[in-house]
């Protein structure tokens, strides 16, 4: 594999981890978030600060990074999740801009220059880059997918689904909407933090612009394309929106046009996403899988 392919593949896997987190918030609990890149950034900046300023390793920093992302998710989710739908969308956009501004203007976070010199991940004495680092990221993605799969079988996710479908009815069944929305938000932001941490150690240099609002829109586009609330949707969506721009690199000026067209077509013809219920892809895949099991 050429270095170019490895780079694209690694970034896609890292993004897929964040999109899986977004799926817990938007797909499972039905709470729109247009500020997911902020938590991706919080993960990246926490690991950058911890490893460059305190000199601790990626592995020691990781639980702290996930904890910080989840804690900030909790603090920002607490007021945000009291509003719904359009208002929640606007609130989460606001969160994205505020977090980005903090990174950009607070000298502690390197200001406009960002933070450089983020060390590579050490694994049993080996400095991971290229394919080994890609495999590490892939391992984390598998772990995240396993957590998501395990979540879908839990009472917690059943409560989240109920809130997504009919909040008032859910509340008359003993489900506190605020509690379970927050739970989904915290799990989702923790996953974003993990993705952000891997991103920082791969790029070795980060700046506020890496976590701006358009990145959040991209995450949401990947999720919608792949299929909200499905297990594999985030992975499929990230793959497609990760590869397409590379294939259409000559058409770079029209990229946004194609994105928009793609999203409009999806919403019109496959509102559940590529892997959503009753989608074309699922109609083809399901019989195939059944055939394989036989």
């Amino acid at each position, binding site marked *: 594999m050429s270095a170019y392919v490895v780079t694209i593949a690694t970034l896609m896997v890292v993004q897929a981890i964040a999109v899986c987190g977004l799926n817990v918030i938007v797909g499972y609990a039905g709470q729109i978030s247009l500020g997911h890149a902020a938590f991706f950034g919080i993960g990246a900046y926490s690991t950058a600060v911890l490893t460059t300023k305190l000199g601790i390793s990626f592995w020691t920093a990781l639980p702290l990074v996930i904890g910080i992302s989840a804690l900030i998710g909790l603090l920002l989710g607490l007021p945000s999740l009291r509003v719904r739908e359009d208002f929640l969308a606007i609130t989460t956009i606001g969160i994205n801009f505020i977090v980005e501004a903090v990174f950009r203007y607070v000298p502690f976070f390197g200001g406009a220059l960002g933070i450089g010199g983020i060390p590579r991940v050490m694994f049993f004495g080996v400095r991971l880059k290229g394919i080994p680092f890609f495999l590490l990221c892939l391992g984390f993605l598998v772990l995240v997918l396993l957590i998501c799969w395990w979540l879908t079988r839990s009472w917690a996710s059943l409560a989240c*689904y109920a809130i997504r*479908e*009919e909040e008032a009815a*859910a509340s*008359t*069944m003993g*489900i506190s909407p605020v509690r*379970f929305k927050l739970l989904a938000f915290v799990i989702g932001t923790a996953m974003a933090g993990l993705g952000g941490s891997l991103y920082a150690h791969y790029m070795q240099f980060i700046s506020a612009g890496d976590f701006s609002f358009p990145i959040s829109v991209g995450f949401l586009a990947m999720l919608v394309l792949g299929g909200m609330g499905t297990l594999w949707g985030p992975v499929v969506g990230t793959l497609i929106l990760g590869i397409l721009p590379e294939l259409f690199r000559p058409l770079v000026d029209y990229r946004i046009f194609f994105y928009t067209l793609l999203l409009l077509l999806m919403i019109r013809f496959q509102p559940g996403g590529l892997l959503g219920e009753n989608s074309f892809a699922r109609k083809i895949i399901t019989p195939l899988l059944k055939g394989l099991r036989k």
Partner: protein
Amino acid sequence: MIQPLLSAKGVSKYFGGLRAVDGVSFEVFPGEILGILGPNGAGKTVLFNLISGIYEPTSGEIWFSGERIDGIPPHAIAKKGIGRTFQIVKPFASLTVLQNVLVARGITRYSHLTKVWGSWNSKGEIEKASEVLEKVGLSDLAERKAGLLPLGNLRRLEIARALVVGHSVLLLDESFSGLRHDEISRLEDLIRSIRKDGLTVILIEHNMRVSMGLCDRIIVLDHGQKIAEGRPTEIQQDKSVIEAYLGGKGTTHAT
């Protein structure tokens, strides 16, 4: 003297200048079927929303088995054993019928963060949920997506979920409306059997024949106020009730 299980004391709910519920008091005794009647916009559903905690009363008190419950959030009220259905059905549309009931079965877990990580997909849970579906006659449709069911089945699904939550009181909001004749008599039988199991039922009902046949007592609301209370036969002959439904003196063309 028997203590009332549920009681409202001068409960009011104002939306700006609109007095949706205006100083209503009533009591429900254990094992009773209480009917709430009244023309459209009389405040019946608002009263249910006050009892189930979706609204907080502007003034007045609501008591349930010796405890004041007004102002408590809906999920906490549900935990006390008060289940309800909605007049405009609210199924969890993309979940299966069985999963809809399972959501309700989780009620004992949702308030403990340690208990919500277990799997709902266990044999025991599914069996118990299936029993409830059996009771309301939805067993055949257990694996169907709730959003695809016709209204009659959705009303039964609402009752199934309410039955799981409401081990003490059931609030049924126009569960009979939109049902066929045979469905109505089946539902009547179901409510009678629920009462035999020791539950207390409060139901909002427009169908006079149903409410007269089913209820032990009836209260009538009009413009947010209680205008009558009594046994079905008394309500049938109550002058103010007839006026509220058919129009008072001076109304022409009243039929």
